[in-house]
């Protein structure tokens, strides 16, 4: 095994261990843990069995087979980043809704929440829209 292969396998094993550590601590959701474990496994397989990369390079007509690996790594990173953009958008939307709902609920608790229109519509001065008594416009 070449030194670089040993290094890659070592890194992959570390990734797997870190993932397992966080799963045990309930701090990583399954969907992510599976993804990272898959990445770790892929690294090990591609390192030990060089034939897979060479086969892929031949099929794609790439003369320098590690280039295929670089491409896959970049694609993986890009997909992950996009996934995070989606997650962040969703989370910040939900955050906003929560803050708004909470402020409304608190206003209700403190008695200054929105009062629905009174059933006795006309005449009840409390809910009337009195326009200032002047000739402006």
């Amino acid at each position, binding site marked *: 095994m070449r030194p670089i292969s040993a290094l890659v396998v070592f890194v992959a094993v570390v990734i797997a261990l870190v993932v397992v550590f966080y799963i045990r601590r309930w701090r990583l959701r399954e969907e992510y843990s599976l993804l990272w474990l898959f990445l770790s496994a892929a690294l090990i397989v591609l390192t030990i069995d060089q034939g897979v990369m060479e086969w892929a390079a031949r099929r794609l007509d790439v003369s320098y087979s590690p280039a295929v690996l670089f491409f896959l790594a970049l694609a993986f990173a890009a997909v992950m980043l996009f996934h995070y953009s989606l997650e962040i958008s*969703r989370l910040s939307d939900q955050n*906003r809704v929560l803050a708004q709902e909470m*402020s*409304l609920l608190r*206003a209700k608790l403190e008695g200054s929440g*929105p009062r629905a229109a009174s059933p006795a519509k006309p005449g009840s001065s409390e809910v*009337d*829209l009195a*326009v200032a008594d002047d000739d*402006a416009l």
Partner: protein
Amino acid sequence: MTKDRHMSAGLRGLVIIPAYNEARSLPHVLREVRAAAPGFDLLVVNDGSADETFEIARSEGCAVLDLCFNLGIGGAVQAGFKYAVEGGYDVAVQVDGDGQHPADQIEALSRPILEEGCDMAVGSRYLAPGRYEGGRLRRLGNAVLSRLCSLLSGQRVTDCTSGFRAYSARALAYLAHRYPADYPEPESIVLLARQGMRIREVPVKMRERRYGRSSITGVRPLYYMTKVGLALVLDIIKEAPQGQEGGKA
């Protein structure tokens, strides 16, 4: 005398005042609004201010929505829309907490909603006589965006960035669920127009703000213009909203 028709009709109006660190100008704004539009209920939305905005609004005795962290103008105003929808208001007028919106125009602004069946009335600085003083870049940015808004909405828009606005119950119901987070003013014009709602501009003379500064200064108008312009164009391809806001849980 305009001892008003709206009064006997039992219509209800709400003034929404988004406030972020406006403790200094808020008492004055509240006093003005109360004097100029006595028939309207008052709602201050405290957008996670670090100063006494919340305490002042409470001590002035108006309803307050206290956001637990700063959401930005879009999120704050939208909280006000939700309040207005729950309260079943017929018209809601948005007035900035910094005092640049003239309270005596609140009624002029709500008239198109209550009498002409419009869904949103926008107070325009550029329809009023006398030129609005602002940086050249600012005016340019506003002009470009307003043209874009006119084009996309098919309605005449001269001041798309004005935050001095009145909304109908129908517009409120829509915007309570869909409202852009930052720099929402131009986008909301196009969003409402695409829902087939009618928008009317009303000439309004705005004032210099009493305290604090605009968030859009220096070359930022150009950044703002580009960002909002792109957002407007992106809105074209957005599907009609479906389901819950915030997406799937």
